[in-house]
């Protein structure tokens, strides 16, 4: 392995456009309707859901409509396309219509009351439109086509996000459909500066990706860089936001997430308002938030809703939980097998008498238990929900109780492992928690070999790595290092909302000031001016 050489990015291959139909390049639409119908039907002849329907416009001019029935709203086609085209009310209309120079244009302008409609002539565009659930209307004598958006999709309702539950706060979560997700954002941000730019990626899946930001807040360079990185993606499929995340992150070899994902529109909007960019991917209920710094991974949207002292304490507890999940088991090994002098004698006696019958060294014992715990965790996620509960009970009983009574592990080890596992579940962000849980293993091994020094060195490796990380140019440990006084107000503590007067400066927002003053006038006592005695 060559450590010092960064892999050079291979030059992007130019994809020839319209690859799907490269053998039908010669096929062009002509003025002859029958020929056109043949051409199009040939492409889709094996598909059961492809439909074509021929009819006469106002009873005279032959025309045909093409659509993929699984993608369109048939009722819409009947009511809004075929119906107005087939019959016109008055005779006068009819003659004027057919007398018009360009029938297609006048159909679009005068006859069809349809919000999304256009006239195209390219063969590729027409195929593309059909595949995106649009209805194509061909008229005899014209080699152009009328394209009308009739797309409809089965979608689930908006439900509470599974992965980010809150006690207090909105219950809405993103769903798979991009348009709905954008509407959820726009509903909360009714300002003209809100942008949702669409980019299409994935050679085969042609997934729509929306880059959402506030024009007057988000840094131009940041937005450009996000769009550039997304455009640079060269892959055949984008099946979820997770694909995009892996292609646009700064350091793909790092265990730490450098892009935040959320299912909550309120959280996405909060981040947009701070100057971040939110990436929505069609087909994924997760929004990506960039840049992401480490702090964000133990914060929840709920933190801003309850009173600041409570939120600060809760954040602190989460932070401690994160540290627990990373270091607790290795600290236990260190103390027990290398530095028993660190803890008081009584505790040491208790710990070692519990280990009396255990046949392994502490490090093996802890390692085995941690692995068992990870297996349990993974199994519980994959199990169907009804069985999952049962499994966790079995797991706790068997692995915990029985292992102890069998003399396989000591009771204190079980306590330690449980603490370190629960610690990782207290982290709101699943991907950050899993990073820490996996990094726990090298630390366990290191501290099993060289004790406290191993633990210290291992932690420094992790911290140094995190300090060298950047997410879209923003250092991962902002606002701690580099120090940022304003940023610390919203980091491991959560200062009162009225203190947040500036947007995070590491994002270089165009408009730094959130508000001049959070409360226009201080509270007044409405009862103070009432005279006593009178009611």
């Amino acid at each position, binding site marked *: 392995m060559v*450590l*010092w*050489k960064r892999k050079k990015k291979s030059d992007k291959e130019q994809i020839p456009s319209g690859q799907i139909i490269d053998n039908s390049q010669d096929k062009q639409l002509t003025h002859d309707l029958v020929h056109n119908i043949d051409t199009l039907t040939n492409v889709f002849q094996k598909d059961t859901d492809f439909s074509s329907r021929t009819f006469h416009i106002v009873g005279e001019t032959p025309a045909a409509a093409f659509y993929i029935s699984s993608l369109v709203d048939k009722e819409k086609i009947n009511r809004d396309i075929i119906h107005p085209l087939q019959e016109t009310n008055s005779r006068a209309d009819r003659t004027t219509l057919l007398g018009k120079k360009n029938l297609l244009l006048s159909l679009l302008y005068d006859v069809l009351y349809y919000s999304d409609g256009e006239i195209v002539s390219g063969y590729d565009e027409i195929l593309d439109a059909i595949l995106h659930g649009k209805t194509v209307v061909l008229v005899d004598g014209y080699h152009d086509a009328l394209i009308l958006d009739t797309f409809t999709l089965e979608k689930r309702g908006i439900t509470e996000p599974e992965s980010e539950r809150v006690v207090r706060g909105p219950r809405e979560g993103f769903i798979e459909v991009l348009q709905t997700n954008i509407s959820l954002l726009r509903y909360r941000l009714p300002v003209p500066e809100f942008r949702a730019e669409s980019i299409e990626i994935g050679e085969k899946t042609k997934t729509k990706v929306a880059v959402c930001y506030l024009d007057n807040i988000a840094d131009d*360079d940041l937005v450009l*860089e996000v769009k550039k990185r997304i455009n640079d993606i060269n892959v055949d499929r984008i099946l979820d936001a997770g694909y995009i995340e892996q292609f646009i992150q700064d350091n793909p070899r790092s265990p730490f997430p450098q892009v935040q994902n959320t299912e909550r529109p309120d959280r996405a909007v909060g981040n947009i308002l701070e100057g971040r960019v939110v990436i929505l991917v069609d087909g994924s209920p997760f929004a990506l938030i960039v840049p992401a710094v480490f702090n964000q991974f133990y914060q929840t949207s709920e933190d801003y809703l309850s009173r600041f002292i409570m939120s600060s304490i809760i954040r602190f507890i989460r932070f401690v939980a994160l540290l627990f999940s990373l270091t607790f088991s290795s600290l236990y090994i260190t103390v027990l097998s*290398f*530095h028993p*002098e*660190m*803890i*008081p*004698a009584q505790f040491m006696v208790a710990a070692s008498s519990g280990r009396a019958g255990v046949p392994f060294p502490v490090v093996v014992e802890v390692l085995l238990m941690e692995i068992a715990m990870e297996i349990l965790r993974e199994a519980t996620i994959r199990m169907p929900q009804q069985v999952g509960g049962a499994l966790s009970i079995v797991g706790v009983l068997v692995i915990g109780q029985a292992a102890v009574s069998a003399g396989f592990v000591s009771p204190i080890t079980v306590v330690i492992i449980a603490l370190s596992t629960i610690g990782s579940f207290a982290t709101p962000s699943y991907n950050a928690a899993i990073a820490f849980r996996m990094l726990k293993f090298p630390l366990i091994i290191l501290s099993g070999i*060289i*004790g*406290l*020094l*191993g*633990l*210290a*060195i291992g932690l*420094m*490796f992790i*911290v*140094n790595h995190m*300090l*060298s990380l950047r997410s*879209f*140019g*923003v*250092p991962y*440990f902002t606002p*701690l*290092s*580099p*120090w940022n006084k304003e940023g610390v107000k919203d980091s491991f503590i959560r200062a009162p909302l009225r203190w947040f007067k500036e947007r995070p400066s590491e994002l*270089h927002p165009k408009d730094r000031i959130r508000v001049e003053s959070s409360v226009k006038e201080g509270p007044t006592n409405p009862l103070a001016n009432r005279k006593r005695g009178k009611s």
Partner: protein
Amino acid sequence: MNKQRDKVTNLQLSFIVISTMIGVSLLSLTRFIVEYSGSGAPFATLVGIVIGLIGIVGLVLVGKRFPTKTIIGYNEIILGKSFGRMMSVFIILLFIILAGLETRQYAEAIKGSILSETPIQVAIIAMILLCMTTSYQSVATFAYIHFFYVPLILIPILLILVFAFRDAEMYHVTPFLGHEPSIKEFINGALVLPQALGNFLVIAMVIPFMKEPMKSMKGAVWGYLIAGLIIFIVVTMTVAVFGDKEIMQMFWPTLILGRMIQVPTEILSRIDAILLISWIYAVFTTLLSYYFIIVRGICELFRFHHYRLISVLAAPIVFIIAILPDDIFHMYDYILLVTKFALLPLLVYPFMLLVVAAIRRKKGHE
């Protein structure tokens, strides 16, 4: 992107100075000062800090004259290509040797306190690996790392000092000038300090990467003074608690000071292991600075910008130097020798550069 934003600020510069200065030597420094100056050690420390201050001011002055160049760069401009490069090679060699010896010093302390049965090479390799994997990062990352560790280093030190007050005895530190002071011994004691802390040379590699190099004086001097103050308090407290006679029996008086602390509640019976961890952080930041000078220096000298390669290649050399001394006594002999005849003159070196630059009318590009 955002390369322009990854600049070192003044605050970060002062933290770099602090965490570079507070390092391996903190454990043994008191002993060497006491060896020369006896109970006059605190006062000798003060004098030493002032001497060092002159050095750092000189360094910043040169840096401000050449705000876009590191010490390697302006060596060539001021002294001419061949002689300037020779000086740069000398500086880099010095820091390679220092890095090796100080790694050894740290490993000895680890062996002596927590890992008595583990081969000393393990501790050395662990630390060198750590420095190796970090030293090729950007200057901004270097600054962030220093910034992050400083609180982790300072808080435990301050904790020791607060708890140590209970055992301090006034008569240990009097007379302030030491018993029967002789100028020569006193100055020798005072010079131990700049000998141990001359590593602030690292700022000469950082100044050109600053947001405002012309304002670096404030950050550098403040950092130096804070670090100096902490070291002064540590020396004074150690002498006040143990007295000069007792200190002469110890290799690492500061560590023993930490061992004496008892935490009020019965959670931990001894916290010296935890203090040792924070000292490992201090060691790491200091060695990282050395490594940084080595890697950046070599790359700039040979105009070869493969930082990763250089930091990998430098690792075995530092390792060999670290295992060269036979034992701890040899090691301290070497350290004192190297710092006395190589690091001390470096304090005067910036002024020499300034004079030559003034004579040859050399200035940095605007």
